[in-house]
């Protein structure tokens, strides 16, 4: 037996001692499914996958990994789109799907305490009988877990009004990379001292493993109005979004679907009866007191008309509302018809820059000869340029990557950032330097080192591997300020 095999055998023995052999996978064929997350472009083989069922087991696993000097990575449902759950450096995957209890729904205080493996939509379903719901609603909410949402600070279509995960998490139970456990924050939302919860949410699982989450629940709005506007082109749809924002209206969602996506949807089982020649559609949703919504939705209708909409429809009932949303929610599924692979980008620009940036994004796609479509959270300026491709074609793959890099540079140059809700992960770690200088990353490394000085918790994420080294550059002077 080689030294490496012996080490691996010792690791498996130690892990099996923590959770039992039936909850520890280590054979090659068992591990295949864990070689990537929702971003299939990047893969890495884990040393093992373990399934803890309690905080104590998580602590024991972390201690075992630490003792063997093996890194580990927490994983939820694996729906992430930035390679955030990738098992770099032969990491052990700590699969949190069995930490899936809703410990408490407390309607009087409008909070819930959940474990990280609870599926996002299941929490809202459990809260619904109390007239409450959990607001962050990523598109994958039927599958993604709240632990993953915390790691990525997940958003969703209704972020515009309700905010992202960080606005709804009040307290966390966190197992640190040394195996200790901390209670952070307060269920009351008031925790004098450093905002540890704010720092951990969105840290992509690099500061520890969350084993319990206290979240705020929101009252289900009394009424919802949904509007579908059909535009001759995506630029006029973006113009309408700008006018709605400037009019100081606060819709719950403002989503745009472009022509290529509309056609893909109409050709699929998600067909919503949209005109195939429409340049773009805008879905605007408002919620709140019933007394206020009719006037507001009429105002949005008027603004859409002024922005150049060919047709505007307001949903007359829930069935029609669902039909409007089908075009948006079915978009990613429909794109499966276009090509075997889909690369979902995720950049943010100032909303006012949307028309210009989108035009250039499409130009980039055309220049590289790629099928590029757009479906995005326009109200937040959060773009999702989607490139359909076949990864078996190396030339096509190279063009996809080159086009993606150009899109990110374009968005940063427009005053934006490289990710709005998917995270940096493995995918964009080399691009973070477009947004932040060495000094900015050094500050982040100081935070990381506070929690994980040995860098064994989800290594190889967020920070670039090619030009930044915190140890060799403890005081990066004269960094170039990137214009914001």
């Amino acid at each position, binding site marked *: 037996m080689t030294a490496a095999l012996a080490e691996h055998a010792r690791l498996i023995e130690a892990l099996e001692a923590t959770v039992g052999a039936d909850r520890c996978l280590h054979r090659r064929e068992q591990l295949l499914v864990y070689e990537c997350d929702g971003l299939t472009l990047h893969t890495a083989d884990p040393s093992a996958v373990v399934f803890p069922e309690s905080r104590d087991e998580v602590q024991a696993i972390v201690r075992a990994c630490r003792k063997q000097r093996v890194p580990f990575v927490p994983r939820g449902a694996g729906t992430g789109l930035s390679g955030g759950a990738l098992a770099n450096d032969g990491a052990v995957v700590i699969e949190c799907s069995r930490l899936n209890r809703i410990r408490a729904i407390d309607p*009087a*205080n*409008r909070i819930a305490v959940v474990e990280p493996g609870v599926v996002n939509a299941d929490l809202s379903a459990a809260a619904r009988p109390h007239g409450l719901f959990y607001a962050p609603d990523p598109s994958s909410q039927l599958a993604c877990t709240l632990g993953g949402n915390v790691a*990525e600070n997940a958003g969703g279509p209704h*972020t515009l009004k309700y*905010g992202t995960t*960080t*606005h709804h998490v009040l307290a966390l139970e966190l197992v640190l990379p040394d195996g200790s456990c*901390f*209670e*952070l924050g*307060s*269920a*009351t939302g*008031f925790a*004098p*001292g*450093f*905002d*540890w919860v*704010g*720092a951990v949410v*969105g*840290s992509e699982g690099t500061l520890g493993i969350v084993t319990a989450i206290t979240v705020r629940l929101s009252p289900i709005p009394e009424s919802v109005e949904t509007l579908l506007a059909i535009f001759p082109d995506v630029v006029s749809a973006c113009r309408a979004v*700008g006018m709605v*924002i*400037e009019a*100081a209206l*606060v819709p719950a969602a403002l989503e745009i679907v472009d022509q290529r996506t509309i056609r893909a949807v109409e050709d699929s089982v998600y067909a919503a009866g949209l005109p195939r020649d429409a340049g773009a559609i805008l879905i605007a949703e408002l919620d709140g*007191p019933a*007394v*206020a919504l009719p006037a507001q939705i009429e105002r949005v209708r008027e603004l859409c008309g002024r922005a150049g909409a060919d047709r505007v429809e307001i949903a007359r009932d829930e069935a029609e509302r669902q039909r409007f949303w089908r075009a948006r929610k079915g978009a990613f599924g429909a794109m499966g018809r276009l090509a075997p692979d889909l690369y979902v980008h995720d950049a*943010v620009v*100032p*909303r*006012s820059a949307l028309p210009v940036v989108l035009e250039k994004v499409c130009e980039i796609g055309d220049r590289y000869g790629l099928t590029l479509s757009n479906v995005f959270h326009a109200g*937040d*300026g959060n773009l999702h340029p989607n490139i359909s491709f076949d990864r078996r074609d190396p030339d096509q793959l190279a063009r996809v990557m080159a086009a993606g890099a150009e899109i990110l540079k374009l968005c940063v140059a427009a*005053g*934006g*950032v*490289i*990710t*709005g*809700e998917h995270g*940096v992960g493995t995918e964009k770690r080399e691009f973070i330097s477009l*947004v*932040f200088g060495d*000094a*900015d990353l*050094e*500050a982040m490394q*100081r*935070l990381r*080192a*506070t929690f994980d000085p040995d860098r064994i918790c989800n290594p190889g994420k*967020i920070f670039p591997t090619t030009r930044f080294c915190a140890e060799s550059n403890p005081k*990066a002077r004269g*960094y170039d300020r990137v214009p*914001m």
Partner: protein
Amino acid sequence: MGDLEALAPQLGDALRFHDPIAVDGVPISATITPRDEDDLSAVLEALGEARCAAIPLGAGTQLGLGNAPQRADCFLSLAEFSHVDELDASEGVCHAGAGTPLADLRARAREAGWELPLDDAGRGGTLGGALATAALAPRALGFGRPRDVVLGCEVVLADGLRTRCGGRVVKNVTGYDMAKLYVGSLGALGVITGAWLRLAPKSAAVRVLQSEELDDPHALALGVIAARLATARSCLLSDETRGLRATVELAGESASVEHDAQDLAGRGLRLASPALRDAAAARRFAGLAGAVRFVVSSLPARLAECVMELRGAAAELLVLPGLGLVCARGASADAAALFAVAARAAAAGGGRLLCERAPHDAKRGRDVFAAPPSDAALSRALKARFDPLGVLNRGRFAGRV
């Protein structure tokens, strides 16, 4: 002081000596006023080399917040960082320097058709001060907490490193959310020099309603209901002669405001003048400073138990039911007793406590942030990474870091 005097040639006009100003019993007789971020960076580096300690200073309205400094040689004034750099009315975002008075920023936002969602209850503070202290005031109910208003910020760290985090866009998960760490950290890690802020839509209608004086249980029940109305921007229960009086500010789109106003009218509240309420609320909230002042948090359903603990021990209470906060004022002679009562009240409410103001001898040996031991351990580890020499606000923050 000797160390600071040795730096005088290097600091030039930026250093000014003056009559001592005491911060929790520590007299400070010098103020350094850096011109810009580069200057501030050099100043912090020099202070570190000279093993001096500094307290960042905005308008000085919240100098009493924090533990007694372990050492403080000078103030670091942000007066030169007073500028609104950009206000993008189409986007609803703005960037301003930390020394900008909130009143100026608020006026600029209103001119552009937006609202600055930071409430300092008329304290007269600066943007940097509001962010460093994460100052909460009644309108945080509608505006959200200061942490949620900041999109990005520039911070010069204690060792002089100039950094940025976040950005100007309203949605962003690029890297760690460092702004969350800096907001409310009392300058323990670095000095915030400027920030991008999310503005709020200007309200088409504002209504203020007040109740009669009510006994505690009735007022608290009413307060929780009122604070949960869709347009409630602030909800405050103030101690009066015979009980608590609820004052609720509704703001937003006209039809919704009228709808909620009718709801409150049906519960016995009467319309009051917004101007009167503004003045009264600000006076009550800011004026509640007294000699000793605590903020205790509570879950809504346990607010009554929390108030019950404080009632009797505190000279005056102010309750913000929507934020789950109870402010309690007492006399300096009662400080030690109030610490104990506030801890019991926080336990009763399932929350935490902060002693916002107390005589320095009452603070001695205590952590006014009442950080739990685990928080304190993490705080020390973080402080050691960011400010190993203790240049900024040494000993003042949570865990006495």
